[in-house]
């Protein structure tokens, strides 16, 4: 029983990690008014890049950085269209997802049978010796901890620094921000690139640590769940962590259910995260006033300075 609970908790932390990365990046981008529906595609590009680099014998750190670069490059393409050319953000993001899934499949077509060793666990001294929780919470790979550090950093940036305030202002009232003299488009470029890099890191976590191999479309909708998480979190980093843990918990529920010997169709269990996403969205969006208060006002609206 204790062992089962420990593996559930540990699985939850691990499954939540790619979601935290991808959703954090998207959260910051959306705070500045950019809705990038290409998260799924950028995650896939990150995953395939990271796997390819690690497979060629480079250390995980290099692989993760390469993944961030590749996904940020994809985000830059999105930014040129959606920001400089002010195209429809929905359609442009969808194009990025389609391109990312296609391109990653093409790049990874020879990776099929390859395998790499997973990222080594990082045992935090003393803490990992605590009974029950110690081995679960303090004996994970470094990327699990890094996700939480970045989340705290994002909170600090958005709410405690002046550039963070500017990002939020750009998302709420881009024309006013421009009038005061802030370069709206340039700021949105930066947040979009950050969003891309984070999505790439989330993808890298999947192919380096979560399941250290490459499978076509291995993100299986996690990019979209990350988008839903941002709404769930009401665009706040703290709540995003809670949401990611919730989703992580649900996606490892399969272990739990099997542990108790409950017979359910495996498809139903696999569908749980998607169904939960829908239910959570309903719960969070039901009150139109709070939803409107929390949503960045200029979200997904093309910005043309001359108007």
């Amino acid at each position, binding site marked *: 029983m204790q062992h089962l609970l420990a593996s559930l908790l540990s699985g939850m932390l691990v499954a939540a990690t790619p979601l935290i990365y991808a959703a954090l990046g998207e959260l910051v981008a959306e705070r500045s008014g950019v809705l990038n529906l290409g998260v799924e595609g950028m995650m896939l590009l990150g995953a395939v890049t990271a796997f390819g680099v690690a497979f060629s014998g480079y250390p995980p750190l290099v692989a993760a950085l390469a993944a961030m670069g590749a996904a940020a490059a994809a985000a830059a393409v999105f930014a040129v*269209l959606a920001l400089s050319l002010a195209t429809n953000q929905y359609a*442009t993001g969808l194009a990025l997802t*389609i391109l990312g899934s296609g391109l990653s*499949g093409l790049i990874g077509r020879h990776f099929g049978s390859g395998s790499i060793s997973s990222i080594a666990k990082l045992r935090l001294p003393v803490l990992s010796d605590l009974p029950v929780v110690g081995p679960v919470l303090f004996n994970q790979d470094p990327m699990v901890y890094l996700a939480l550090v970045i989340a705290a950093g994002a909170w600090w940036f958005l709410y405690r620094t002046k550039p963070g305030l500017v990002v939020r202002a750009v998302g709420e009232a881009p024309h006013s921000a421009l009038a005061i003299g802030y370069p709206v488009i340039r700021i949105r470029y930066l947040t979009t690139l950050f969003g891309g890099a984070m999505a790439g890191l989330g993808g890298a976590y999947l192919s380096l640590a979560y399941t250290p191999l490459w499978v076509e479309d291995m993100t299986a*909708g996690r990019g979209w769940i990350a988008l839903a998480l941002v*709404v769930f979190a009401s665009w706040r980093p703290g709540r995003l962590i809670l949401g990611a843990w919730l989703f992580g918990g649900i996606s490892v529920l399969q272990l739990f259910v099997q542990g108790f010997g409950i017979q359910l169709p495996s498809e139903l269990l696999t569908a749980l995260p998607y169904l939960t996403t*829908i239910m959570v*969205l309903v719960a969070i969006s039901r009150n139109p006033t709070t939803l409107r208060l929390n949503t960045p006002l200029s979200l997904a609206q093309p910005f043309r300075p001359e108007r």
Partner: protein
Amino acid sequence: MLRIELEPRATASHFMRWGAPLLALLLTVLVIAPILALAGLPPLETLRIFFLSPLSSLNGLSEWLLKASPLILIALGLTVGFRANVWNIGAEGMYTIGAICAGWLALRYGDAGAHFWLLPAMMLAGALGGAAWAAIPAFLKTTANTSEILVSLMLNYVAALLLSYLVNGPMQDPQGLNYPQTALFEPSAMFSTPFAGLRINASMFITLVAVPLAWLLLERSFLGFQLSVSGAAPAAARYAGFSQTRLTWISLSISGATAGLAGMMEAAGPLGQLTPVISPGYGFAAIIVAFIGRLRPVGVVFGGLLLSLLYLGGEAVQMSLNVPASLSRCVQGTLLFFLLAGDVLILYRLRLRSP
């Protein structure tokens, strides 16, 4: 640093209206060629097989229309919603549910005694099934403000898993050696194929009827006007008293019904049974088709013909060079990027400026 600036044109550019899509296609080829080279494929040879070989035979033409038909049908439905800013990206799931509903009828009543009503009933079941699946995001959007984008997308995965469950369990062929598939449909549950040796079938007429209907709805009806206004100027639509709830329901139901019908056409056409994977990504490709057609029914026809050509090209390359089908999605995504960028040139001029 050079800055790209948009300068509004005095009038919309006629040249760009027609030239932009061609320019987009050309640029797509120019971008894809080096990607192919990087992926270790001979670029020119691959492109030749991709774009030219599918149309060099009668069978190729038949396959071309066979693929274009569902793409056009789904895209026509999506166009209705996109006009009104209702972003249904769950056509893939609606397509799957339509195929499941029609397939159930086919397996239940498709015995030796030929029922003249079976095929029409399957069409109805497919359309209703797709519309019912679309009713979920519609209901949740209109009652709980949930994003139809995320809900309809999540339901894609749920529909795919439901199909997988059904063909592995309740609907599995009892004589099928445990393969995950249903029994083959009887001829009475399938569209007739008028040309011997070619797979093209009578379901083509459904799309042929749908195009003028969509044109009437979108370009000539008050409802079509309401949809366009609520998409382009939501505030104006509110002042005019157009019900956003009603328009959301209509958009999603229509796009669900067309996607479901397309799924039925595939199941009762080239497939003739249900298997775990019944769509080569038509639901997503149809989004591109709608945009290539600039959300106009006649444009959608051209878009559907173009994208189905890309699908065939992908298959041809897959067979002759052993390249995964993902090449098609690569080309599709790149093309959509350039189309979106190209359309900016209709209303704007690009200026490079150094500050």
